[in-house]
């Protein structure tokens, strides 16, 4: 391919196909728009929270193609063809809570609730990854989600409880 066809004046926005909580979307975004800001400000999925905007707190954790990631560290343009799951996508279509959500409630694994969407998504992934062999393992693999209310012992207990329910 020739350089001339590669290096060109680009449009100000990019069209991106992205599936969010099962819904296919085609969106026009600037290249610099983060997945986090897009979810919150463009399509109104405000369950995903902004805490640090640098990957240091985990409150924006979402699933991208099944893996947990910090939405603040991803550009929407990088998500072409990807499937994203946010906290709004955890409960069943009938509103039935996910086992992880139920375990968080049972264990009182949240207080102010701001980090909770990220904790929940991270917990779903932690269980799916198989990192629930012991409380110590859960604590390590849930350490990417800061909780300043410090509900950590309850979060760990909830992840263990949900893992058991999910047969992991």
């Amino acid at each position, binding site marked *: 391919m020739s350089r001339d066809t590669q290096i060109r004046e680009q449009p100000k926005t990019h069209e991106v196909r992205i599936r969010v909580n099962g819904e296919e979307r085609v969106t026009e975004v600037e290249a610099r728009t983060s997945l986090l800001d897009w979810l919150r400000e463009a399509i109104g999925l405000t369950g995903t929270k902004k805490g640090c905007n640098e990957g240091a707190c985990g409150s924006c954790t979402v699933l991208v193609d099944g893996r947990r990631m910090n939405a603040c560290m991803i550009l929407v343009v990088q998500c072409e063809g990807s499937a994203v799951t946010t906290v709004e996508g955890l409960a069943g279509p009938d509103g039935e809570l996910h086992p992880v959500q139920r375990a968080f409630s049972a264990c*009182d694994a*949240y207080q102010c609730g701001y980090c909770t969407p990220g904790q929940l998504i991270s917990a779903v992934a932690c269980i799916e990854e198989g990192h629930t062999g012991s409380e110590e393992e859960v604590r390590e693999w849930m350490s990417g989600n800061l909780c300043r209310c410090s509900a950590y012992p309850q979060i760990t207990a909830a992840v263990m409880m949900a893992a058991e329910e999910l047969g992991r």
Partner: protein
Amino acid sequence: MSSADARTAVGSARTRIEGPLKLTGAARYSMDNLPPGTLYAVLVGATVASGSVVTIDVAEAKAVAGVVSVLTGEDLPPLGPVLEFPGAPVKKPMEGDQIHFEGQAVAIVLAETLEAAEEARPLVSVAYAAEPVVLPGAGERQFLGAPDGDGTVWWPYGQPFARGDSAAALESAPVRFAASYVQPSRHHNPIETSGTLASWDGDRLTLWDSIQASMLLPPMFASVFGIDPADVHVIAPFTGGGFGCKGFWMHQLLAVAAAKAVGRPVKLHLRRGDQYNATGFQPLMTQRVELGADAEGHLQVYRHRVANITGMVETYLEAATEVKALYECPVIDTAQEIERVTVGMPSPMRCPNEGPGLWALESAINELAHEVGIDPLELRLRNYAEKDPLTGRPWSSKKLREAYAEGAELFGWHGRPRGGRRDGNWLIGTGMASAVGGTMRMPGTARVRLRSDGSVLIETDVQDIGTGLQTLLTQIAADEIGVPIDNIDVAWGDSALPTTGPIYGSSTMHTGSAVALACRELRRELAALSSLADPIEAVRAAGVEEVVGERTSQLPGGVEVDHDGGSTGFSMRTFGASFVEVAVDPMLGLVRLRRAVGSYSVGRIINPKTARSQMLGSFAWGWGKATMEASELDPTTARWLSKDLAGVHIPVNADIPGDITINFVDEYDHHASPIGAKGIGEFGSVGIDAAVAEAVFDAVGVRIRELPITPKRLLDALA
């Protein structure tokens, strides 16, 4: 439970009623709102910590596509008087050209998108005439006198106290101990940074704010913008962590002023770095404690000196000497100073006053116990204060002796192994400390409606900062009215509801009490309408749609604030003890928490489930303070070195083991509130640092008197 003799909701473990909202992402925090036409705001902060602004060139920033306006001080509408609130700043933002701390707002960028606003921020070109900064250790020290003295003290805490001749008593004491203790500046770092969304409609203002004291905003903005407080509508149901930093701050005023200036809603969500300068911090403090005792460890004299940094124009006193009621001691001498340096205003932080104070006092008590060769717990019992040692008043309730005993039993304190035993690379040590907390009571207001369908609605303008307050209110109402708890709902977080106290701490006392009183009024109203015992049958029989009770929980003498029971004739405080076991790796300087017990005498526990969470979270705060948290200033520019969550550590999940036992002594404080409860939320963090330092000493034999206990400090001490 529909009969009055089965009132067991209070005291039972209840699951949070707001849970489904928080667990599904449906809970709307302030920055989750976006009215049509909203502009995104980003603050431009001063890059010098001292000096003045010479020029601000906004042309390049304004030229960025999407930028609507860049406001400097001249562009703001005229601002009326800023009200003076305890612990809040008073200096108007962007007024005049003087810079008093790095990061002080000098301009606001407003844009159609967040991306455009952030792009434009560094393009605002500001020229400064810099002046020398003032760093801790070099600032002007100021002794703060009585509150009616120079007017700089805004609360009655931290006043000098002297009984007896401390110099003579120290001179003659058979055993003397003296040491200085340092703790660094620390930031609250709630995971939700502060945010304000302001929307004007003529002279009516709607605010979505991340706040834990929303009742401050209507009077404040009424004063500043010359409007009726009733026209300030504050919507703040969910606040993503407060910990003391979400009262009134100038960014809120700037967002409101900017919205007025441009005639569009303005959304200002502080970036993490901005928060380091905008909403306070717990200030760097140096404390000196001098103790004199007899050979059996009975205290004869206690002297405590404290100095904390504060800003050049804003005054904050961290009242660490408010721990002086912990022990019986004939001679007590405490005093505090502030030191003015070029930083922003400090503020209360979980847990203010006693948190810092007990780091020093309880460390000193542990060291004294070692000097006289007495078990640290036994030394504390020998100096147990049966009544308030300052006033001689009886305690409203105090079961610290029971808290010690139960905590020691749960921990196995008396049978604990000698310090320094080895487990692989780790050396194990144990330590303990007491906790004492002040009691700040304020009036609260609530309205309770019992409808003919049997449902109950509690209405009060509390904000949910995570304490579980709404759930507690339903428990109180269930027992007071005698209806099933599942019939009860709460409307909160909106200034159209009855105004109540701030959600700094102890909010169960003010608003929980108000709910209890409102329910009692409701029952009286109901009794006048129907003689039926069952309230739901009664309201139906009365043929009315609803019966309403609304009450304010007044304090004795009608005071606005009561400190430590001052208005009651009793001394009112909370008490507790923490026991910790740590592992220290002396080669690598690591300290890890292995297990702990917190045992508390804090009045009646309304909801053991959420109370336990409060104390566990608070315990983790104590661990963070003991071992990792510190915000350091650059010694040349007086800028915070790290303004993020990567360069400043707060505990992560892996730091906090599951083996932490929380124990509440069975207690009911009849004097503290109509519901027997006192404030607990911050209290679990108190004394952990001293217990950890003692455990480190027990493990490896070195005393660390400057927090946090990091690998660097440990290796330096062990070298």
